[in-house]
């Protein structure tokens, strides 16, 4: 490390500042990345990580501050200039074109004109060379999330980048896929490529990254060596306070079966959807059942059939307190005391163009009695929205703002809060802490556990295994529309779950190829 300290940094930022109306997103931030270094950028939601990398990549312009590249002043007016300099970026939300082929997508990210046949050959070469299998002629909308990410990586690699920026790259991958990607990254670092790595997953950062820069509230906090820190100490640096792990509920308090699925099947209406195939599970009162799985293995369909957006084949396939609910619509289910946090925050979870007050009303009007004499009780609804904002620490300028104006993590907190504060008997939660930072995630986990302690039955669908292990009593794995037997967390390891999740993805790909051909 001493010798590296004398090296000229590949990229150095000095005093980068960027202000938005009302917020200082970046407040004179310093950052140094050496050649061949994997550098983590850590911080909560709203700490200014995304703003900073967008400035480096030329999507945004800093108000003040300087950038240096190999010691020389650097000016990046737009992403084209960034790529020319040798900066590549892999976005959290893929910048891919669904209607086009892999080759066309990659051509769009490269300068100048390409011969498509040559490009396809180079894609195959690079993807084989780095262990990132890709078929150049496939249309993107037929690919899995992991494959889509490979397109982004290959697109960057084709330009021989000297600095690769990755924004939460593993949030969509299985543990095995993530390990494979780490191998690729380590190899790139050995070849001298610098990597700026953004992630919420602290364990990952500890095992992968050489250095970490921590941001909090738009300010530079410190630079540290993540290999000598613990996940807990890193998280505490990020949020600035002490963190307490969520406490498990006592299994002895487990009550009667509240939700029971018996041979639950559903034929997907989407051509690229997954059919549910004879699912069986039970959720007891006071229990949290976790459902793990790689996205696109039937989670969407399972959540839809549980919420009532699609109906089960017959009503008895789904029982709530012994009553058949398989044919009920979402409103009827909500009236029975069931609440839902859907996967899609904008659209299913909220109406983006409506205020937080209206959004609070839409799902809570019946349990919270927000209607008086057939009219909306505005006072009560506003109070309820304000209570959600306060209890779940939703950062917003006021409840009259639209749901769409909230950042992803804050909207997630609002939706989770809106459902949890209805004191439901059964709550179905998809990705409870998706896009939420460590501090808020801990608070949401604790709230879920507290709700279970009050006797509610809870079903959590998530891809984040650490999360499922932290809160669930039992975990089942969904793969290709089938559900494994739920087992107590004490008997399970992450590796076992990972194998259940990943063991079937290969066949899923094959099935997709067949359906396309």
């Amino acid at each position, binding site marked *: 490390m001493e010798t590296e300290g004398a090296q000229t940094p590949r990229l150095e930022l000095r005093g980068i500042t960027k202000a938005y109306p009302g917020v200082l997103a970046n407040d004179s931030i310093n950052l140094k990345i050496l050649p061949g270094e994997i550098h983590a950028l850590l911080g909560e939601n709203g700490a200014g990580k995304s703003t900073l990398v967008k400035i480096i990549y030329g999507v945004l312009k800093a108000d003040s501050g300087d950038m240096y590249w190999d010691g020389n002043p650097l000016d990046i007016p737009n992403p*084209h200039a960034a790529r020319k300099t040798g900066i590549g970026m892999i976005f959290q939300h893929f*910048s891919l074109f669904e209607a086009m082929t892999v080759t066309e997508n990659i051509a769009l990210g490269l300068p100048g004109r390409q011969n498509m046949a040559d490009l396809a050959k180079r894609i195959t070469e690079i993807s084989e060379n780095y262990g990132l299998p890709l078929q150049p002629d496939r249309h993107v*909308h037929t690919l899995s999330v992991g494959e889509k990410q490979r397109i982004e990586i290959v697109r960057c690699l084709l330009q021989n980048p000297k600095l690769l920026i990755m924004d939460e790259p593993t949030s969509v991958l299985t543990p095995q896929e993530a390990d494979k990607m780490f191998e690729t990254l380590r190899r790139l670092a050995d070849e001298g490529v610098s990597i700026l790595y953004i992630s919420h997953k602290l364990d990952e950062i500890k095992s992968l990254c050489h250095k970490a820069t921590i941001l909090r509230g738009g300010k530079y906090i410190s630079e540290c060596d993540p290999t000598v820190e613990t996940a807990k100490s890193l998280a505490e640096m990020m949020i600035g306070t002490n963190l307490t792990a969520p406490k498990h509920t006592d299994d002895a308090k487990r009550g009667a079966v509240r939700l029971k699925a018996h041979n639950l099947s559903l034929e997907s209406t989407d051509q690229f959807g997954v059919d549910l195939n004879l699912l069986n599970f039970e959720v007891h009162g006071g229990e949290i059942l976790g459902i793990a799985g790689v996205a696109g293995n039937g989670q969407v369909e399972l959540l839809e059939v549980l919420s009532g957006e699609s109906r089960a084949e017959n009503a008895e396939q789904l029982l709530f307190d012994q009553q058949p609910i398989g044919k009920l619509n979402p409103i009827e289910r909500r009236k029975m005391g069931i609440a839902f946090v859907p996967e899609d925050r904008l659209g299913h979870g909220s109406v983006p163009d409506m205020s937080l007050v209206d959004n609070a009303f839409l799902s809570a009007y019946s349990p919270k009695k927000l209607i008086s004499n057939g009219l909306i009780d505005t006072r009560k609804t506003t109070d309820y929205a304000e209570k959600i904002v306060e209890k779940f620490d939703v950062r917003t300028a006021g409840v009259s703002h639209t749901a769409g104006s909230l950042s992803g993590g804050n909207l997630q907190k609002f939706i989770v809060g809106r459902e949890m504060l209805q004191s439901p008997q059964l709550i179905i939660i998809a990705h409870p802490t998706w896009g939420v930072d460590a501090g808020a995630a801990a608070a949401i986990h604790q709230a879920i556990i507290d709700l279970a302690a009050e006797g509610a039955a809870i079903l959590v669908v998530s891809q984040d295994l650490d999360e499922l292990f932290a809160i669930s009593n039992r975990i089942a794995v969904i793969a290709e529309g089938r559900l494994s037997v739920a087992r107590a967390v004490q008997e399970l390891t992450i590796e076992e779950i990972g194998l259940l999740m990943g063991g079937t993805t290969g066949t899923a790909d094959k099935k997709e190829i067949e359906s396309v051909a």
Partner: protein
Amino acid sequence: MSGMDWIVPVILTVITAATPLVFAGIGELITEKSGVLNLGVEGMMVVGAVTAFVTATVTGSYILAVLAAALSGAFMAFLFGILTLSLMANQVATGLALTLFGVGLSALIGQDFVGVPVDAIAKLNIPGLSDLPVVGPIIFGQDPLVYLSLVIVALVSWFLYKTKAGLILRAVGDSHDAAHSIGYSVIGIRYLAVMFGGAMSGIGGAYLSLAYTPMWAENMTAGRGWIALALIVFATWKPGLVLIGAYMFGGITILQLHAQAAGLDLPSQILSMLPYVATVVVLVLISKDESRIRKHAPACIGKIFHPAA
């Protein structure tokens, strides 16, 4: 020979009826491929028609007339662009307004030109070739705009699927956020696409007032702009099918006239409905196959782009 006597004029009139649809359709195809829905085709066509007619009667030059029509259409589209792309107004409402505006504006401009006679654009005449039976008048005896329309369809097809610029245009229509994050100027590209669409609609209008019925009458486009819009859905956003569809829809219009002439007592309204019925049927059919829509329909169509980064 009496059979032949009947067929050749029918084919000739089908070509003249189809050509304005080809122009307007291929222009709107480019607009829509970039992710913009401009419902103002009818308005841009009718302004193109009056501009061409006025220019032709005043200057006597048909080349100038067609150029002026293209410019006027592009200018109308530019107005649409300012409202929807820069000021982010709703595209559907703005497009409808553009049509109403165009119909009114053209009536105003054309006030003094109603009933003024003008010669139709001269048809190609290659001694020897154009006199051949059947193929002569059909292949070698058209006016220059008919040939131009075919060349443009070929060029658009080549542009969209063989050039990088075309790939970028389709990319902008497929996901403007992704295109923006890669660094393409979504708004700039859309301005160009919208204005190309306007220019083509203008030429389509010019063909009506200079070749199809060489005269000016208020509202003379008579719904052809709407047929052009329907045509694009019918063609599932493919240039080749736009051409085929235009000739089919043009054919239906002509069929209606000839059916009446032949004494067939079919209400003309039924036949006027056919293009739209065909479009609805095609919509239902392609909706069943989602992957087809996903591959060809621009996913961002009609969506406002906020370059908020």
